[in-house]
C-alpha cells in the first residue's frame, strides 16, 4: 500500500512556480531518493509535504496513508506520522533537547489517544536511541540546536526521527555539512529504522549519501518536474555524467 502518493503537484513560492506537476508514489518499506541540481525544487517539495503554510499549492493532490495531506496542518501531519529532517534545523534557546523531544512524543501520543509519557519512562528510551547515534549524555540538557555544529544538528534530526518513529520520513539534504564519519553514523541510524511499514524520501544533491543509504528508487527532479526515475544505479550515473545528461530526457516516474 502506498504511504505517499503525489499527483500532478504544482506549487508557487512568492509568485514563482517552483513545482510544475510532480508525480510520485512511495510504498511502505521503500526508500526513494529525490536528486536534482540546486534550485530544482527539491527542498520546496520537502517543505510542502511537511505542510509549510507559506507555500502555495495551486494544483494537484497528495495522499498520505490514504488521507488528504494538503488539508492537514503541520502538527496534524506530524501526528499522523510524517517527519521532516530539516536541511537547516532551527535553534530554540532555553529549551532542552530532552524536554523538547518528550513534548513532541507526548503531542503525538495525545493525538493518537495514548497516555502521555513521563520523564521516567521516556528517558531510558531516549538514551537507547542516543547510543545508536553515538551521542553524548550531555546533549540531553543542551538547548535544542543551540551552539551545535552542523554535524550535531543533523544527528539531532535523526535522533528526533528515531524517537518519533514516523511512517514517512523525509530527509532534506541531511548529508550536507557532514564529514564522512558523521555521515556513516547518520546512515546507520536511518538504516536501523528501515522496516516494512516505514517509508523514506531522501532528498539529496550528491550521490555520496546513497552509498550508505541504498535507495529502492531514484527520481531526478529538474526544473520542477521529475524527468527520470530508475534504480540505485541511476544515482551513480548522475555522479559520473552530471544532471545535464538527464536534464532534457522526459522520463516518467
Amino acid at each position, binding site marked *: 500500500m502506498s504511504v505517499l502518493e503525489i499527483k500532478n503537484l504544482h506549487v508557487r513560492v512568492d509568485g514563482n512556480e517552483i513545482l510544475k506537476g510532480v508525480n510520485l508514489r512511495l510504498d511502505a518499506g521503500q526508500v526513494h531518493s529525490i536528486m536534482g541540481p540546486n534550485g530544482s525544487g527539491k527542498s520546496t517539495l520537502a517543505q510542502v509535504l*511537511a*505542510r*509549510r*503554510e*507559506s507555500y502555495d499549492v495551486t494544483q494537484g493532490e497528495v495522499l498520505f496513508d490514504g488521507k488528504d495531506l494538503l488539508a492537514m*496542518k*503541520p*502538527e496534524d*501531519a*506530524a*501526528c499522523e506520522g510524517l*517527519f*521532516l529532517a*530539516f536541511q537547516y*534545523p*532551527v*535553534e*530554540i*534557546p*532555553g*529549551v532542552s533537547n530532552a524536554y*523538547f523531544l518528550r*513534548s*513532541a*512524543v*507526548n*503531542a*503525538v501520543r*495525545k*493525538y493518537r489517544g495514548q497516555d*502521555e*509519557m*513521563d*520523564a521516567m519512562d521516556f528517558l531510558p528510551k531516549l538514551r537507547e536511541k542516543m547510543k545508536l547515534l553515538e551521542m553524548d549524555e550531555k546533549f540531553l540538557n543542551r*538547548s535544542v540546536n543551540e551552539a551545535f555544529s552542523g554535524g550535531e544538528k543533523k544527528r539531532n534530526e535523526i535522533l*528526533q526521527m528515531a524517537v*518519533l518513529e514516523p511512517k514517512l520520513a523525509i530527509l532534506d539534504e541531511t548529508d550536507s555539512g557532514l564529514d564522512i564519519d558523521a555521515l556513516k553514523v547518520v546512515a546507520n541510524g536511518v538504516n536501523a529504522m528501515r522496516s516494512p511499514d516505514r517509508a523514506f524520501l531522501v532528498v539529496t544533491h550528491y550521490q555520496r549519501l546513497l552509498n550508505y543509504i541504498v535507495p529502492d528508487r531514484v527520481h531526478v527532479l529538474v526544473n520542477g518536474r521529475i524527468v527520470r526515475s530508475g534504480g540505485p544505479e541511476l544515482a551513480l550515473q548522475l555522479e559520473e555524467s552530471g544532471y545535464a545528461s538527464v536534464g532534457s530526457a522526459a522520463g516518467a516516474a
Partner: protein
Amino acid sequence: MSSNTDTIRELAQQEYKWGFVTNIEQESAPRGLNEDIIRFISAKKDEPEFMLEWRLRAYRHWASLEKAQAEPKWANVHYDPIDYQDIIYYSAPKQKPNLKSLDEIDPEIRRTYEKLGIPLAEQKMLAGVAVDAVFDSVSVATTFKAKLAEAGVIFCSFSEAVREHPELVKKYLGSVVPYTDNFFAALNAAVFSDGSFCYVPKSVKCPMELSTYFRINAAETGQFERTLIVADEGASVSYLEGCTAPIRDTNQLHAAVVELVALDNAQIKYSTVQNWYPGDKNGKGGIYNFVTKRGKCAGRNSKISWTQVETGSAITWKYPSCILQGDNSVGEFYSVALTNNFQQADTGTKMIHIGKNTRSTIVSKGISAGHGQNTYRGMVRILKNAEGARNYTQCDSLLIGDKCGAHTFPYIEVKNSTARMEHEASTSKIGEDQLFYIRQRGLKTEDAVSMVVNGFCKRVFRELPMEFAVEAQKLLSVSLEGSVG
C-alpha cells in the same frame, strides 16, 4: 509535569481568570485626598504620633509636586491624566477587630484566597511558605506566625509592626526610599494603608519562604501598600509577592513602595509574580502599576536579589534597584516583562555602586505581543570610590507579531577607572521558521509559542522558587493567549 502541555493549553484558552469580585462589606474613606483623609487613615490604624507626622510631611511634599505638575513624564508610557481627587484612598473589609485566629477571617475573603489558590489555613499551606494576605488596603491574615517567632523572625502586617515594633519601623522606614524620592513614593508615604513587614534578626536564616498576596477588590480604589524587609547582620530571607485584581473597565492606581535593608553579610531575595488585571483586548481598564522598589546593601558582603515576572497591569512603571553601599556587596536583577494587547511596560533597574568590589548582574527579558510596548530602562552608576566594581548586563527582547514594540534605554555612568562593565543586548522575533519546526514535531501553534517564550525566559525562571517558576510559566502562556493568529 506530564500534563504540562495540557495545562498550558487549557490556560491558553482562558481569559483573565482572577477577575472575579468578592462581595463583602467594605469600609471606605470618602473620595479624594487632603490632610483630613491622611488623619482618617492614621486614626483607623491607631498609629502613634510619629507615623501621622511622617504621613503629613509626605502629603505636603506630594501636594507641592502635584501643584507643580511634577508627576514623572519621562517614562515611555502613555495614559490620560489621573485625577487624584477621584480616587478612594482607603478601603477595608469590615471585620471583627483583633482576630484571634485565622478561623475568624471573613469566609468570603477566605474563599477569595482559596480561588486564588492561596489557602490561608496553615495545615494546607505549601510546605514552608508563610503568607501575609493583603485585601484591598488591609492585611487580613499572616500565617505561620508562631513558627517564625520561634526563630525570632518578625513577619506581620505593616500596621501591626507600627504598633508592636515602632522602634524598628522608625529606624528603617523611608531609609531607602524617602518620601521625597519621587511623586508616587510621596503619595504612597502619605496614604499607604498596609503592607508587610519583616525583620530577620542577626545570624538567623529565615526557616521558610515568606510570601504576601495582594488583592485589589473594591472599585475606584487605589492600593498603596508598603513593604519593609530588614535582614540584620548575617541574616537571610527569601520573600515572594503575588498580585491579582478583579476585571473592571476603569483604570485603578497601584502605587506601592518596597524597601529592603541588608546589613553586614545579610542576604535578601525578593521575587514578584505580578499579575494585576491588564485591561481587556482593546486596552480598556487595567491597573496602573507605579511602584518604587529599592534595596540597600548597607553592610559588607551583603546581597540583594530581585526577580520579577511582570505579566499584568495596563501600565507598569517600576525599577527595582540596589544601592551597593557595603564593600563587596552584590546586587542582582532578573526580570521577565510581558506586554500583550495594549499593555505598556517601562521597567528595569538601577545599580548604584558605592562600596569597593561591588558587583551587580542584570538580566532582563522583555516580551512584546499584540500592540504591547515594552521598554527596558536601566542605570548602572559606578561612583568615584567604588574600586573594582563590576557589572554584567544582559538585555533581550522578543517580539511576537508586527504591531508591538521593544525599546531599550541603558544608562551607564562610570566615575572609577577600575570598573569593569559588560553589556549584551539582543532583539529577536519569534519566527515562522521556529514555529514551523516545532509544529512539524507535532505541537500546536500556541504550545510552540509557549515553548519558545519559556525558553527565552529560562535564565530568569531559574531564579524563582520552584512552585512559582511553574506558576510563572503558566501565567506567560495565559497572557499570550491569542497573540499568534
